[in-house]
């Protein structure tokens, strides 16, 4: 067994140092009834590297690879080109096989990276501070709602109808157990977001309003009136960004006075990976930092006066506060945060803004082309790299038919909102720098044929 260095003579020598006759003597505390007499039955034994690779490759081949077909899926996970050096660097053993930096003298690489990551994220989201990452965008969103409850000591959260339905589901699951009251709604296929509904719903009991930017249909709206309405009632505005590249082209939620901004960082550096691992982004105003969940890295000096970094404000966390912690979370998403940070460093201001505009202009061109397909119209007036089409028929079967033709056309609202008849004809289409004009033509032509 290639990963186990001990030889049988090593084992014998070690047993004799221990003073045990056999390995079974070391398992004496296991009750006899629970001891297995051999390997767990009905499972195969060990296999060579070649055999395992063949087996896994066969499974991989059963999937349609996004990069090999015209591909328009988004809705919370976006396909961007990741520079080759990102993956090379995160595979360095000193990053890949390190642990949480609890011994800062020999973990400055991870710590400095996290400090840089926090700064990049805070600047991108427009917040004063950001943490060292969360599991993903959906869990970060829920944690923000919990944080707003702790700060405002109120428990009614108003969720925009434009918030990703899976994020809403996660919040609903958790709220059942924490007693938070959630005001939720399904979106309508209009060009406008539900900002007016949200503003009207805020009352003295409201802890927070949660709004996605751009929203699940790709729409964008100025958050400032909403922030003002929240603050007038001592509620917090939480903005959710599932496509961070958008903030290369758009005014950030923090600049529009959102109190907490969370996001899914998968777009930068991480890749699609069938939904995980991803990286949750979490930023907020300075004054709320002690109510923030998750790890934080801070600057300090060492005994010789040299600058260095440590995990800090850890009294918020479960290993110290136990049942009074701000969150039960123990890990962050360190390696994905590293990938995000390296990609951001490669892009820089110039690269990210250029990438964002490339995405946007390609999406505008795609929207105009797809709107020419008979019966198809674009819901959005404003959007970044994702917009919603209405088809003359239910979108879900169309997506399946197009998949059979080797085109991954987008995410149907029927998949996201099963049972909502008013949304069934909606199709959310994402266009990034990886989408070619030819891809758009292929989709438009196939759509026209399928709808004819």
């Amino acid at each position, binding site marked *: 067994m290639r990963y186990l260095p001990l030889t049988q003579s090593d084992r014998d020598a070690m*047993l004799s140092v221990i003073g045990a006759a056999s390995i079974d003597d070391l398992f004496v505390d296991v009750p006899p009834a629970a001891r297995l007499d051999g*390997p767990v039955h009905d499972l195969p034994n060990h296999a060579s590297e070649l055999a395992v*690779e063949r087996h896994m490759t066969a499974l991989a081949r059963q999937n349609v690879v996004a990069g090999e077909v015209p591909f328009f899926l988004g809705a919370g996970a976006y396909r961007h080109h990741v520079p080759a050096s990102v993956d090379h660097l995160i595979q360095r053993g000193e990053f890949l096989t390190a642990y949480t930096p609890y*011994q800062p003298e*020999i973990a400055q690489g991870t710590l400095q990276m996290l400090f840089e990551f926090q700064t990049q994220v805070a600047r991108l989201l427009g917040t004063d501070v950001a943490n060292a990452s969360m599991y993903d965008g959906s869990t970060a969103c829920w944690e923000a709602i919990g944080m707003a409850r702790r700060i405002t000591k109120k428990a009614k959260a108003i969720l925009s109808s434009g918030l990703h339905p899976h994020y809403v*589901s996660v919040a609903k699951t958790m709220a059942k157990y924490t007693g938070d009251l959630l005001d939720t709604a399904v979106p309508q296929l209009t060009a406008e977001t539900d900002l007016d509904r949200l503003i009207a719903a805020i009352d003295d009991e409201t802890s927070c309003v949660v709004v996605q930017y751009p929203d699940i249909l790709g729409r964008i709206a100025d958050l400032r009136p909403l922030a003002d309405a929240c603050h007038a009632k001592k509620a917090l505005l939480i903005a959710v960004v599932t496509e961070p590249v958008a903030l290369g082209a758009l005014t950030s939620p923090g600049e529009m006075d959102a109190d907490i901004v969370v996001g899914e960082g998968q777009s930068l550096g991480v890749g699609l990976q069938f939904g995980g691992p991803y990286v949750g982004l979490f930023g907020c105003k300075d004054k709320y930092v002690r109510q923030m969940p998750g790890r934080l890295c801070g600057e300090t000096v060492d005994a010789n006066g040299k600058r260095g970094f*440590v995990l800090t404000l850890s009294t918020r966390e479960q290993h110290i506060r136990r049942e009074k912690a701000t969150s039960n979370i123990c890990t962050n998403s360190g390696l994905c945060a590293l990938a995000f940070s390296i990609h951001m460093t490669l892009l820089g201001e*110039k690269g990210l803004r250029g990438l964002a505009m490339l995405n946007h202009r390609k999406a505008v061109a795609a929207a105009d082309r797809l709107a020419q397909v008979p019966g198809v119209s674009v819901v959005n007036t404003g959007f970044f790299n994702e917009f919603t089409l209405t088809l003359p028929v239910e979108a879900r079967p169309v997506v399946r038919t197009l998949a059979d033709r080797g085109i991954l056309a987008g995410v149907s609202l029927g998949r996201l909102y099963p049972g909502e008849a008013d949304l069934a004809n909606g199709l959310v289409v994402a266009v990034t720098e990886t989408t070619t004009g030819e891809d758009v033509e292929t989709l438009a032509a196939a759509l026209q044929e399928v709808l004819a």
Partner: protein
Amino acid sequence: MSINQSGWRPAMTAAGDAAPSLTFTGNRALMLEEALIFEIGDSETTGVDLADTLVGEDRLAGLARATPIGLPGLSEPETVRHYTRLSRQNYAIDLGLFPLGSCTMKHNPRLNEKVARLPGFADVHPLAPVDTVQGALGVINELAVWLIKLTGMHGVAMSPKAGAHGELCGILCIKAALEKRGEGHRKVILVPESAHGTNPATAAFAGFTVEDIPATPDGRVDTDALKARLGPDVAAVMITNPNTCGLFERDLKAISDAVHAAGGYVYCDGANFNAIVGRVRPGDLGVDAMHINLHKTFSTPHGGGGPGSGPVVLSKALSPFGPLPFTARMADGHIQLIEEETAGDDHPDTFGRMTAFHGQMGMFTRALTYILSHGADGLKQVAEDAVLNANYVLRSLEDVLDAPFAGAGPCMHEALFSDANLADGFSTLDVAKGLIDEGFHPMTVYFPLVVHGAMLVEPTETESKAALDQFIGALRSVAERAKAGDPALKSAPHFAPRARLDETLAARKPVLVWKERPAA
């Protein structure tokens, strides 16, 4: 083998030696200082070449960014150098033995990395039509079957993102099951005082009241005290097995039977599953729910603090309440994805969704690759070698370090020591920092809380005897210095990229993001 076996070692610097002379750069040979990207990058530099942006109108609803983000950019060579230099300031499993107790820092096979990067896994969208992702769903399903069989349980929830998320999943299953029975009034969860902090944090989050259960002098749960506390208000007990002292909870089956008889459920923290994988099935001990840290037992890389992955195996009683989504293999071999839409008929009691998509797919591919490499026989050997290595460390050092439970019998996969024998004024922290100078990452310190100045050593099964002997020699040397009161230990580490860092300063005046400082 990179371990020096010739017996030669460099002379140690005498205590109190003057600091090495300064260099112009601040660097010292291979030890390179590295500035922050904000200090070396600028807003005009970029390490990517983009296609020309199309000419056209914008539809940004009047919200086009008006101000700079403030992101520094580096060219590709500068980027590679920056992160390579940073990486060299980290300790890692690839560099040496990483004896962090309860963290299971074992070798991370590179085949796992290669497989996870196959485009058929890495470049697949979570919302792609189910027919186009049968291989991805197949990985989830195949791993699920392994986890169920290895643990002797009934079902498994795959989506939890990490261990603590898995704990939450298990506790929410228990809560849902109680409510279904009309016993939502059971509000108390019993947690041994030696438990990891996530246990009480999770129970409290789910609305339970946490009560501590004391330990016996031999480091195990006080079964009598636990049984005496059972009653109609107790929802569950959360037990770690093997426990945080590195000992097997001999009475777990009896405890489970008593908890079940009293109408409660048993949650097992599976953080230490590595000690028993392939040799003991938690299902045989009456466990109702247990999370499995794929990043521990099944060797998905820790990555400097995540991502983790925490599937939860469930008993027959709790399986109906597990979260969405999950996979189901049909008779024709087609794998179905059960989500909100399809759960209504087959899975009406689910407590809901915990995360946006399907869980940590990239960790599933790695864990399955690892599991298939070992097979049932290899996993059994994993547990045996992990336990053998820990006992070897325990017996090799119990004469020099206090080992509070060593007299009671063998340990499992980790050896626990205390600070009882150290000289006055010398602490566990000093031993830990001394080990850094010896080229090792320290063991887990000050955990579990039930042992004063705890030092928890988990060598794992992927260490050779030669590596263990070198570590034992180093720890013995440091322990002897701590017992003798060597003052140089108080300021260790001396040879690391940084000396001890001022954590008080960091917490009093938190500096969490970089800000340009006015020129001096």
